[in-house]
């Protein structure tokens, strides 16, 4: 039977592992945007490459 709805992303925010009280993610108004902060552009600090100095 033909599907009418196709799943592209399945609750990635809800499924993300939460590291309770971690608070490591940075402030989103970084220099790349300086006039418009956007939390959705953040990458989880814990998942970033260790020692990486770029964003």
């Amino acid at each position, binding site marked *: 039977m033909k599907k009418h709805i196709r799943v592209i992303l399945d609750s990635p925010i809800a499924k993300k592992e939460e590291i309770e009280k971690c608070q490591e993610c940075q402030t989103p108004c970084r220099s790349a945007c300086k006039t418009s902060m956007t939390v959705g*552009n953040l990458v989880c600090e814990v998942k970033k490459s260790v020692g990486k100095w770029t964003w």
Partner: protein
Amino acid sequence: MDLVTRDWHLFSIRGEHFLFNSLGSLYQLDEEARSAMDTLYRGGPLDISEDVYGEIEEILSSYKPLEIYEPEDLRLKSLCLNVSHSCNMSCSYCFATHNLSYRMSLMPLEIACRAIDFLIDSSKDIKNIEIDFFGGEPLLNLEVVKNATIYGKTRALNSGKNLRFTLTTNGLLLDSKTLDLLDELEISIVLSLDGGEDTHNKFRRLLNGGGSFKTILPNAKELAERRQDGGYYIRGTYTAETLNFSDSFKKFVDFGFRYISLEPVVTNDPKLSIREEHLPVLRAEYQKIAEECLSRDVKFFHFELPMEEGACLPRLARGCGAGVEYMAVTPSGELYPCHQFVGYEGFKLGDLYTGHIDESLRKQFLRLNSIDSKEACNNCWVRYLCGGGCLANNYIMSKNITEPYSTGCEIQKMRIEYALWLRAKKSLEVKV
């Protein structure tokens, strides 16, 4: 079947229909499903086939709102150091104009080091912290940038911190020798360039009134050539007089830039300000950029939504951190909630000399950093990707930090729609 409209968003781009929910699910709908969802949105009676009904019911019932952990307090983790309130340019839309050359124009090394100590001490158990060298033009105070970075790296090493650095520059002084130093110090760079020569020179002018494009472009190209794997953004501003910013984007790509951001100006100047009537034009411009991103190996900052690798929900439910997680330091050591509040005396948070912090103001910003504190945001589908908007923009546009800058909200929603559309297109490409 009930639909909580604040948690779901139905949108169409180029004849393709999508449904997004605030916890990150994205669905592509055929015309029959879209029509049914549209009816649900409007609260009308559903007259649809059983199979469509079943599919819609399945996705709506799969959504369960989550309880979000909200910390009682937050730690400082990022400082913007205005190392220079002088500038070698005179850009007509600059929000920092009222700060330039007031009081002390260049930050002494002692203040910069004191700021780094303040950040390291205040961050307590937080490991990842940031310093952004800003201005004015920070390269006018390069010696302090260099020595403060060396000091910060040593302090971070001894404190078990991971301290990252960024420098935002107009690019005039970013010659090869300076780039060598910034490469060696591992400082990420944001270079301001508005577009091609005519667009850029329209507002970004030298102190003598001349255009700055021809001096900056070779520096920007060298930066991009050296840092092909990241560590820079070319960042432009568009205004009501330069709305064709997709042309700037295409020029940037042709210049060889891979990491690009283009931002709306936020100003009350009626000639430059982005207004509601501009939104259809902006939509068309963002669409052109999104289409370009499909076929070119470039990253447009606002279309980068790392949904799986992104921040967790407690972080997404908070704002920019201004005044709490993030502060700006003036050359004389005064503290403000962010770089855009610098110079507005009513928003002075304290200073590094006495260590005094206005706790009442800090707590006001702590409260405003929570999505729950803002009714308009709490009822918006994009709240976990936006974070609640920019308090400084609210203040600039209405002199009220709690009143959302509505045109900015619409631009944000528009950008997120195109980011999701891009995500869908790329996801379908992979599946094929």
